[in-house]
């Protein structure tokens, strides 16, 4: 019995030690990154004093001799990210919502096949999807050049097409969950009261699934802004997005300016997701 009590005490200690370690593991890297973006010296081995100068350097394009950084290029990449993200999100939201509606309300054979078609883009390794799109665009553009004599180059259109492809599934999953919660009798009621399908959709179904559509769109936008691997393989000259631009910096060396940029990006993405969650939190109970 005392052995059992000893084991239990050991278990209790473990159950508290593990979270302490885990939270340290999860947060230490982020805190260190932020801390050293304010460090006086360029070293990340010890903290010597507090300064804002690295943030100033970013604004004034002073990134050290070896770096090809420019604030203008970074802002440009950020604009590209927003542009790609908005268009890809709009298309993916429409396509994802359409297939979700169709699968929830339609009665036709082969739905399990559609399930698989929506499921695979989520589980397939990113790099596989990335190179398959890269090869596909190359094959199509080569063929087009052969037929018409004009050459198409990868650019925004290829990135957007790629982002829509991986986003459709996520939108569809979120909207389907919302549709599953919805009472189908509401549509029947509208139907019985003489509304045509078009009216029923816009007056009854759409307002009810709107929170799901918004969540799906926000998820798609976040994934689009965050994506590196697939964009890296489908982007062309001059269409660098923010993650692809940042990757170029991160890969080279550890510098305080890169730490400062990372800190700014972390704050921005946390703010963005926090705000979008707050909007969803308000949208959900209202419906």
């Amino acid at each position, binding site marked *: 019995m005392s052995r059992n009590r000893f084991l239990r005490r050991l278990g209790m200690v473990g159950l508290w030690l593990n979270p302490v370690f885990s939270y340290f593991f999860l947060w230490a890297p982020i805190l260190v*990154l932020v801390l050293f973006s304010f460090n006086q010296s360029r070293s990340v081995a010890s903290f010597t004093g507090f300064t804002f100068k690295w943030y100033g350097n970013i604004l004034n394009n002073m990134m050290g001799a070896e770096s090809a950084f420019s604030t203008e290029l970074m802002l440009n990449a950020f604009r590209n990210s927003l542009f790609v993200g908005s268009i890809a999100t709009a298309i993916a939201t429409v396509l994802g919502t359409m297939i979700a509606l169709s699968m929830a309300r339609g009665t036709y054979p082969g739905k399990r096949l559609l399930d698989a078609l929506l499921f695979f883009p989520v589980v397939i390794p990113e790099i596989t999807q990335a190179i398959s799109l890269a090869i596909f665009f190359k094959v199509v553009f080569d063929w087009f050049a052969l037929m018409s004599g004009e050459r198409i180059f990868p650019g925004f259109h290829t990135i957007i097409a790629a982002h829509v492809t991986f986003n459709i599934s996520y939108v569809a999953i979120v909207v389907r969950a919302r549709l599953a919660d919805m009472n189908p009798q509401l549509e029947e009621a509208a139907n019985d009261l003489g509304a045509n399908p078009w009216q029923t959709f816009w007056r009854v179904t759409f307002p009810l699934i709107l929170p799901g559509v918004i969540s799906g769109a926000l998820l798609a936008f976040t994934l689009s802004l965050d994506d590196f691997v697939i964009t890296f393989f489908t982007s062309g000259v001059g269409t660098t997005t923010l993650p692809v631009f940042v990757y170029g910096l991160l890969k080279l060396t550890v510098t305080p300016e890169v730490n400062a940029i990372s800190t700014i990006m*972390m704050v921005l993405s946390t703010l963005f997701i926090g705000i979008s969650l707050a909007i969803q939190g308000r949208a959900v109970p209202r419906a």
Partner: protein
Amino acid sequence: MTSWLARKRESGLLLAIPTIAWLLILFVLPLVIVLIVSFMSRGRGGVAIMPFTIEHYQRTFGIFSIILWRSIGLAALTTVVCLVIGYPLAFFISTRRNRLFQQVTLFLVILPFWTNFLIRTYAWRILLGDEGTINGFLTSLGLIEEPMKMLNTQFAVVVGLVYGFLPFMVLPIYASVERFNFRYVDAAQDLGANDLRTFLRVVLPLTLPGVLAGCALVFIPSVGAFVTPDLLGGTKGLMIGNLINNQFGGSGNMPLGSALSIVMMALVMLSLVVYLLANRRDRGS
């Protein structure tokens, strides 16, 4: 049960057709092309040319099998470490009685993941480097004289992967433990089972669906990882994802890259099948 779409059988399908077409052209067709290219020969500049060959698969399972096995090994190790850290953590979070405290502890696991994956990985370059924070700290304490080699090793890759995918393990287990009825524990103990037996015979089997889902969610992205080994692994931590990437540069080999991708995809499908089978067996018993 006539809802507005179901009245016309075809109209339901009609609504799905644009999306189906999009996915067939931009998801299925590209994969089919990759499959075909993987059996073609390498032409000048790494492009695919005729005739058909299985040479790239021979190389994948030949000289590149070491990298294939390394990827599987590192992903498996990552999964085990995530499980060892994640299970008790998920248990801790879901057994907090104070609702607010529980939500805060859960939020603290999710919050770091709002940061871009690249930046989270980069943070480990700061920590693990030869002149990094950990080496600096240990040197200043006088514990080591020479910096420890941590960055650009397989150790760094596993640390980065665990860091990247830990929530994928914690969240499904958390959901499982949340549903677990703790009266079963009382019942087992009343019947004379000790703590260990109670855990192994009652708690673990009933939370197994979460564990299995967590393992699949960690293993699958780990085995195909590209960014983590690229930023933290150097040449020693090279994984199959990097090898694929290298086939698309200047001195690349597109058919070889395609063959490697197909093998990796097969690996992912295989682990999914294992997951589904394990899950079904677990539900059945």
